[in-house]
C-alpha cells in the first residue's frame, strides 16, 4: 500500500512537470535508497501499472538502488518523435 502511495506521487510529479507531454513519457528514472522504507520491486510493479494508463502512454520505470534513504525522481525520458503527437 505504501508503495502505491509513492507511485501515485511519482505520477503526479510527472503530470505536473510534463503536462501535455505526459503521453510522450517513455521512462522514469528513480533512485531508491536501501533505507528509504520502500520495496523497489513493489514500487516498480505499481508504477508499471499506473504509467501504462492515461495520461501516460507506454512509460516504464527504472529503479536504481543507492545507500541511505534517498527516494527521488532522477530523470524522465520523453519521446519527441511520437507520431501520435
Amino acid at each position, binding site marked *: *500500500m505504501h508503495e502505491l502511495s509513492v507511485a501515485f506521487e511519482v505520477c503526479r*510529479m510527472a503530470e505536473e512537470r510534463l503536462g501535455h507531454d505526459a503521453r510522450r513519457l517513455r521512462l522514469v528514472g528513480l533512485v531508491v535508497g536501501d533505507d528509504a522504507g520502500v520495496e523497489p520491486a513493489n514500487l516498480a510493479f505499481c508504477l508499471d501499472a499506473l504509467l501504462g494508463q492515461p495520461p501516460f502512454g507506454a512509460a516504464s520505470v527504472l529503479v536504481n538502488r543507492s545507500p541511505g534513504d534517498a527516494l527521488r525522481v532522477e530523470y524522465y525520458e520523453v519521446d519527441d518523435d511520437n507520431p501520435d503527437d
Partner: protein
Amino acid sequence: MTIRTIEVREPVMARNNELAREVRRRLAEHDITAFNLVSSPGSGKTTLLERTLSTLGSELGIAVITGDVQTRNDAERLEHHTTRLVQAVVTGGACHLDARQVLDGLDAIDLAATHLLFIENVGNLVCPASWDLGETAKIVVFSVTEGEDKPLKYPKMFREARYAVLNKIDLLPYVPFDLDRAIDNARQVNPGLGFFMTSALTGRGLGDWCDFLRRETHRLVAVG
C-alpha cells in the same frame, strides 16, 4: 525515435514536505506543540489518548486528528473524553496519514484554543515513518506484547521518533518480554530516544507522561 532526457532530481516527498512545512508554520503561528503517535495496530495509542484527555483535558486545549484505514472508531472513543477538537481521517486504504490530510484537519480545528495537538497515525510501523506531517516530534508507542525486537525489525520508525512509549507494562509479569533488551535494541538504532513506561489501562507511568506533555506545551492556559 528521438529520446530526450529531462533531469529532475526531485525527492518524491517534496510536495508532502512542502505541505508539512505549511502545517509547521500554522502550528508555530498558534504556538501549538504537535505529536505524531505512531505504532503497530493494537499498541494502545487510543487508550493512551483517552487517559491523556481525561487527565489534561481541563488543563490544556488538546486537539486530536485520528487516522484509520476504515471506521471512525478511534475518534468516537476519544469524543467521549472531550467535547471538541477531534477530527477523524478515514484513509480509505492508505496505510499512513500525509501532510495534506493534516493540513485539511487543521482547517476544522480551533487553533487559537489549542495548545497541544495529537496526530494518531494509522497503526503501521513501516509507512508512517517516511511521511513528515509537520509535527514537533514523532512518538512511537510499542507494547510489551509485541516483542522486544520491534526496534530492530522496524529501525526507520525508531530512528525517526524522538520518544518511545513502552505501553502495557501491567502485562510484564505475564509475557516473555525483556524490558532492558527492548530499551537496548531501541537505543541501538536511536541512542537519543527518550522513554516512557506506561500502562494506559491501569494508569501506571502516566504521571511522567503527563508532566512531559505539560513541559512540552508552550502555553499552560486553562481552557475556558
